[in-house]
């Protein structure tokens, strides 16, 4: 009887030892996970960084304006014209004109059991397809939710939002404005087996609207190259 009870206690001690060890490990792992304060602190820092980014951006806009206004004399005016042309090509000028407005949004389809909801969500690839189709149809200038699409623009899905021009976060609905011949642009999107057909297969909401007057804003960011050098 006495020996049996010692066995019990031995067993209990072993179980307790095991639990203690596990507890210890869990507690230690927890220190690696950042606690709730950290994301909040980061979010605040991000907010500050965004604010000072906007201030710097405003300063750049102002300096570009000053530079343009400082130009006098015929020789400089000629250069200024070339500069304006180059800016047009680079997407640094606002463009107005007729065109199309494409509105994209996630599917509102009620999913059947077993269907993958991911298939019915708008992906960055879908936006790229629409942009590409518009470019192929001769769009002069394109913007996505007010962000000008330039050569280096990337479209990245982060959760339900899209990130373009490095860190401009956009949320649905996504409105693509393209200046160009409205007829050509809209036909290229809505042709049979075209992009609209493809997107509607996944019941993604697409709406193509011809518009008489559109404004596509300018790209105003920096023009800094860290790696590329002009070749003379």
């Amino acid at each position, binding site marked *: 009887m006495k020996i049996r009870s010692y066995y019990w206690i031995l067993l209990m001690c072993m179980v307790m030892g095991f639990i203690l060890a596990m507890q210890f490990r869990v507690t230690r792992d927890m220190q690696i996970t950042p606690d709730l304060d950290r994301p909040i602190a980061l979010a605040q820092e991000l907010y500050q960084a965004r604010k000072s980014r906007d201030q710097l951006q405003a300063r750049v806009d102002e300096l570009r304006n000053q530079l343009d206004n400082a130009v006098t004399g015929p020789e400089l005016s000629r250069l200024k014209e070339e500069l304006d042309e180059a800016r047009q*090509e680079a997407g640094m000028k606002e463009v107005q004109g007729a065109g199309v407005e494409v509105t994209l949004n996630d599917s509102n389809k009620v999913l059947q059991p077993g269907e993958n909801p991911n298939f019915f969500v708008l992906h960055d690839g879908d936006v790229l397809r629409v942009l590409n189709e518009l470019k192929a149809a001769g769009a002069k200038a394109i913007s996505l939710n007010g962000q000008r699409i330039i050569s280096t623009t990337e479209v990245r899905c982060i959760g339900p939002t899209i990130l373009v021009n490095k860190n401009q976060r956009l949320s649905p609905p996504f409105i693509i404005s393209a200046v160009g011949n409205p007829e050509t642009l809209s036909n290229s999107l809505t042709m049979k087996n075209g992009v609209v057909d493809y997107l509607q297969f996944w019941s993604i909401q697409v709406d193509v609207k011809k518009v008489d007057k559109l404004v596509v804003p300018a790209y105003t960011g920096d023009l800094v190259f860290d790696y590329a050098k002009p070749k003379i």
Partner: protein
Amino acid sequence: MPQKTSMYVSIMLVAAVLGLMLSVQFRAVNHASNGISIDRAQELTVELKQINKEKEDLSIEISDLTFKLNQIKQGQTEAISALQSELNKVRMNAGLITVSGPGIELVLDKPDTNTGDTQISPELMIIQDEYLLSALNELWGAGAEAISINGQRIIATTEVRQAGSFININLNRVVPPYQILAIGNPQELMDTLGITGGLQEYWRDLGIKVSLEKHDDLTLPAYGKK
């Protein structure tokens, strides 16, 4: 009988400690499940890094513009050179100037047709415009500064569009193998394509021949010139 009592007492004691530990453990694990914040923290850190990079670039832009403004005020010749330099910068951004720098070379080629591997249908093995578009998107996202495909510089209005069995870029017909040159941080550009589950793996699974190399000095043509 006293022995039995002492045994019950000791078991009760052990059970009480065990219960306490269980509840502490439970609370600890519960607390740890707030660890979803690790994603959030990561996301925020990435965003913060990019904003700080943009701030840095904007500051460079500001000092550059300030310098040029001062030059313009100094006199005619200085003003001309300041404007000329601004013009070159904008042209470079528009892709109107030949550029060189370090970067990567990515080549995509059709799979050999006679391998007898019938698992993948032949339509999938054609390199579609989509593959090139997603490659471009990934590379821009990783900070590429200039890209060309088969000698066609990619600019704001460049399309990459399937037209039958070939692809049109800048209204020029290009055929495989597709050679994509990108200037930027070579390591970052490599990494964005090469990560597990990334595009390189996807293309290889489709049977497309992929080669990815770093280069110290690449030259990309200007838009509109061969």
